[in-house]
């Protein structure tokens, strides 16, 4: 029901939206809750467990009842609070947790079974038979209980994340926050002011009291206008600070376009902010708490402050005949506002016996309590218990106030616990709970408008002092300074269920039962009863529940304590937190210079860390990847193959002590390496296991270039930095990653030199470029680097050019190799080629293998110290019984080998105690005509020729294999030197 002549909605802009398929009208500035109330809709949802009819309780983000699903299809968003969702033309909303309809919900039968469904019901009832839990009980319970459902479709909306930095973050734009922001902003501080409402002003927009010579709302609008004109101020409305983190970092969720229909053009729905502030003023206000009594959850029962907010801000009276029930002075404000607006106030039931009501324009029942309500899907009557007995009153709305709880949540996110204040019967933030934060206003237990305005100025000044800035005087406007007196009343005595947590259907009885069953710790009580869980996290019910628990256990409230407040303060969509992280945004993609051409050739890509590398290059007529792979292996063994190896880490190392550094990080000696030569090196971790391997070339006396594996490039770089900064800062050596700067290609096969000699500007021969030689070459006038190294066992080179020439060089290499009967090869062929030669990769050096295990124990130089040397010599790491690198061949040519399979003695039962080792790498060797593998076998080197069993329990493969040396082709290494 609209009340004329009040409010802050824009009556000139009509808006139409739908709720459960029915179209309703409202005005710009309405929330779904205010617009539905204006249309006389009180039933907005069904409760979680008992499916009881529920209406709106609050007018803010603490709302436990009025949860709706907004939008359709893939864009549907469940569990949106109707009190927060603004209406716009075309907005589609639905109720939740009811079937077939909100008015008639079949599951409401649960409510009749309530005597059996109290706290701990699940734990007691569904114990046996054990397997019934997953199969029967849980699915049924999940179907009956619940909130809104996900669409099940991929999220099509766009989300964003952003970062902000400021001198001062002010949280909350009520009277306190506005004054704090104004004080700091006028003094020149860089201020960010955030408020979760669409309209800044906080309670001033919901009250009738004046500030200065204006209404509170007009005064607030004036301050906001002044702030918005200042360059050092950023105003963020519709933004809720959700968490406080170390280093003065705040998380916040901004509703960017959830309040209008335009979501196209990549405009995000919501944005998750990380705000770093040198100082913070928390002016988060307070949340009103209800009083528990029988059937206090009937639609039409609301907090008194919410009734005022709907009346004064949204021109809506939630009822025609309203009663107010409270234990404090603030409740009277609701009655006065209603009377002033012409709404019939049936009576104010004040629990305090000695209350001085003065000349109230409404009937006052002093020392009385509301002990029950009547009605079906909406409130029709209340029962008032006075000294003379119980009386029924016909009302359609009951405004309840049990007092106000300061919104202490954010002050507890860094381990802080709030402090109990007896005078206001509420917890307030503990001083210093969050470093660099000043708490002010209602959030700190300061309740009158005048006191809040003054406290805001004081907080602004405190912030300026902390920031080392000079203060400017700010005049505090005149405002109401009414006292706030209350007498605690948490629950009205009586039979029946008196509700505390509306969202989780927790009653006073449930809390008492938990206490009786010895769940006396507040954290145990919470988990036993589900008090304070789900989307509202008990914002309006937790304090009441722990007061009941305190009473039931004979303890004081501060002694009972609160549960732990954790982020987020309001629900945050995972999509917003992980904005940009879907699909291609999941991880950066690193592309080589040959990427485009490789894709054009139809090569499927595989990921190697962040890099994308070709798996194989399919040709017409090839039905399987194996056919392509076999052909590519043939290129390298018989003609020439080319492969982009730019993804390997390349680290440029320079300085007089470069050799010293290399000697220290590699097991073998590099300082003796001649300029123009390359050496293979093995790198250990300090604990003696192998970290990485690769070749390092000496380009000059003080200049080396190291290659790492693709996977370990970052770790090796970090390791080198560690050694040079943390262990030997006295060494004169510097290094930098040049992985991105050089495009490097392997040219491998008997015709490799023939290919290069048509390409490089001066021909090469075996004498000037023997195996393991390196040096500069000119390629079409471009200075590149040539390394005669091989990862295939064939006569091979790696040719590097500055990255900008990479794509052109790759095209040239592909064309020339094809002319010679070869072509490009991918990772599958590369893998087969290196297994055939027994070259290790991270499949072998997987973090457990030692140099001894991979047959390189003797590469640890006796002449010098190196990282990992001492620990690698530990007896356990050089035991003959350790699994060591071997080659594996199936006894029958068609026998399958699988990576990860286990090795057992022939005929031994394939169980753990008989385990002899495992298979690390496998591939099909076209030359040998069978699968081959590398693996680790106990006492492997001593077991050459032995026949053993390979068992893959996962894939169900069992193959008899012969143990052999881990070199299958050209064991004497003649080809590579040819």
């Amino acid at each position, binding site marked *: 029901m609209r009340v004329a002549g009040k409010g802050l909605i824009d009556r000139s802009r009509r808006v139409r939206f739908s709720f459960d398929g029915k179209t309703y009208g409202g005005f710009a500035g309405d929330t779904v809750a205010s617009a539905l109330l204006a249309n006389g809709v009180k039933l907005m949802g069904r409760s979680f467990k008992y499916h009881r009819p529920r209406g709106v309780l609050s007018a803010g983000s603490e709302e436990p009842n009025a949860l709706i699903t907004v939008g359709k299809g893939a864009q549907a968003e469940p569990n949106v609070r109707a009190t927060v969702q603004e209406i716009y033309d075309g907005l589609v909303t639905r109720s939740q947790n009811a079937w077939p309809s909100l008015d008639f919900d079949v599951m409401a039968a649960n409510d009749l079974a309530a005597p059996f469904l109290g706290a701990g019901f699940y734990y007691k009832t569904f114990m046996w038979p054990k397997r019934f839990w997953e199969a029967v009980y849980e699915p049924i319970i999940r179907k009956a209980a619940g909130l809104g459902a996900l669409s099940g479709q991929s999220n099509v909306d766009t989300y964003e994340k952003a970062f902000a930095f400021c001198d001062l973050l002010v949280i909350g734009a009520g009277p306190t926050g506005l004054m704090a922001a104004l004080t700091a902003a006028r003094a020149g501080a860089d201020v960010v002011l955030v408020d979760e409402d669409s309209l800044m002003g906080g309670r001033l927009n919901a009250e009738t009291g004046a500030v200065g010579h204006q209404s509170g709302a007009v005064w607030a609008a004036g301050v906001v206008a002044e702030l918005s004109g200042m360059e050092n101020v950023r105003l963020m409305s519709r933004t809720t600070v959700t968490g406080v983190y170390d*280093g003065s970092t705040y998380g916040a969720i901004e509703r960017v376009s959830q309040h209008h229909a335009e979501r196209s053009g990549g405009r995000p729905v919501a944005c998750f902010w990380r705000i770093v502030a040198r100082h913070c003023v928390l002016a988060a206000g307070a949340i009103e708490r209800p009083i528990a009594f029988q059937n206090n959850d009937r639609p039409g029962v609301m907090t008194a402050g919410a009734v005022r907010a709907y009346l004064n801000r949204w021109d809506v009276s939630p009822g025609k005949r309203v009663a107010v029930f409270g234990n404090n002075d603030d409740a009277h404000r609701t009655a006065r506002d209603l009377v002033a607006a012409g709404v019939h106030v049936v009576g104010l039931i004040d629990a305090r016996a000695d209350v001085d009501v003065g000349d109230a324009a409404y009937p006052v029942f002093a020392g009385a309590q509301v002990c029950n309500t009547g009605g079906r899907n909406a409130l029709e009557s209340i029962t008032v218990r006075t000294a003379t007995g119980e009386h029924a009153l016909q009302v359609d709305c009951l405004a309840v106030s049990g007092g106000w709880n300061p919104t202490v949540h954010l002050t507890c996110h860094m381990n802080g616990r709030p402090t109990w204040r007896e005078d206001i019967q509420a917890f307030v933030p503990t001083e210093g709970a969050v470093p660099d934060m000043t708490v002010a206003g209602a959030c700190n237990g300061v309740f009158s408008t005048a006191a809040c305005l003054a406290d805001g100025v004081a907080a602004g000044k405190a912030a300026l002092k902390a920031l080392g800035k000079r203060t400017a005087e700010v005049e505090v406007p005149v405002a109401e300074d009414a006292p706030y007196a209350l007498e605690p009343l948490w629950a009205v005595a009586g039979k029946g269920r008196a509700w505390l947590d509306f969202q989780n259907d927790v009653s006073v009885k449930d809390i008492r039962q938990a206490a009786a069953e010895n769940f006396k710790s507040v954290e145990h009580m919470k988990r036993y009863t589900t008090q304070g869980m789900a989307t509202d996290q008990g914002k309006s019910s937790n304090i009441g529940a722990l007061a009941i628990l305190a009473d039931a256990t004979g303890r004081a409230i501060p002694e009972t304590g609160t549960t732990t407040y954790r982020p987020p303060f309001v629900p945050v969509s995972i999509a917003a937190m992980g904005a940009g992280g879907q699909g291609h945004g999941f991880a950066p993609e690193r592309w080589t210079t040959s990427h485009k051409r490789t894709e054009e050739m139809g090569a499927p890509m595989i990921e190697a860390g962040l890099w994308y590398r070709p798996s194989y290059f399919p040709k017409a007529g090839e039905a399987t990847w194996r056919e392509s792979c076999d052909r590519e292996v043939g290129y390298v063994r018989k003609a020439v193959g080319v492969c982009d190896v730019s993804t390997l880490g390349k680290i440029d190392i320079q300085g007089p002590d470069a050799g010293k550094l290399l000697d220290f990080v590699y097991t073998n000696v590099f300082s003796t390496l001649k300029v123009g030569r390359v050496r293979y090196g093995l790198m250990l971790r300090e604990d003696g296991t192998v970290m990485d391997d690769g070749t390092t070339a000496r380009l000059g006396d003080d200049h080396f270039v190291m290659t790492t594996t693709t996977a370990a490039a*970052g770790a090796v770089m*970090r390791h080198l*930095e560690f050694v040079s*900064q943390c*262990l030997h800062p*006295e060494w004169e050596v510097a290094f930098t990653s040049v992985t991105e700067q050089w495009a490097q290609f392997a040219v491998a096969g008997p015709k490799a030199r023939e290919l290069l000699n048509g390409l490089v500007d001066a021909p090469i021969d075996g004498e000037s470029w023997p195996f393991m030689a390196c040096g500069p070459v000119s390629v079409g006038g471009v200075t590149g680097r040539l390394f005669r190294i091989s990862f295939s066992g064939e006569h091979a080179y790696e040719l590097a050019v500055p990255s900008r020439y990479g794509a052109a060089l790759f095209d040239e290499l592909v064309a020339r190799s094809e002319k010679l009967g070869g072509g490009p090869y991918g990772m599958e062929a590369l893998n087969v080629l290196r297994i055939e030669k027994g070259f290790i990769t991270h499949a072998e050096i997987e973090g457990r293998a030692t140099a001894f295990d991979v047959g390189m124990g003797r590469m640890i130089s006796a002449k010098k110290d190196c990282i990992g040397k001492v620990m690698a010599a530990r007896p356990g790491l050089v035991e003959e019984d350790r699994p060591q690198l071997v080659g594996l061949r199936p006894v029958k040519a068609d026998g399958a080998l699988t990576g990860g399979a286990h090795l057992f003695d022939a005929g031994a039962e394939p169980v753990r105690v008989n385990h002899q080792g495992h298979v690390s790498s496998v591939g099909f060797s076209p030359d040998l005509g069978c699968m081959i593998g590398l693996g680790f076998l106990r006492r492997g080197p001593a077991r050459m020729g032995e026949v053993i069993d390979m068992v893959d329990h996962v894939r169900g493969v069992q193959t008899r294999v012969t143990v052999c040396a881990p070199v299958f082709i050209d064991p004497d290494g003649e080809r590579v030197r040819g």
Partner: protein
Amino acid sequence: MRIDCPLCGARDRREFYYQGAAVMLARPAPDAGEAAWDAYLHLRDNPAGQTRELWQHEAGCGAWLMVTRDTVSHVISGVEMAEDVKRAAL
């Protein structure tokens, strides 16, 4: 959490790589014996209070830093270049 890198200024902890206790700076001599090496590699204090630990500004300047941090309050009271700390100890 933010770390004040002496070269780059205060940065989000996502830019840093965490190594562990700063005892890693004091690598024992090769002949220091099993106990010294065991302590260097494996044994760590777990205090409720001040710790000295190594972080690297991996996504920034690459500097290794010695960070003095309180494990209870998470307050970082000092950030030094590990290089300087090591040099002073040489």
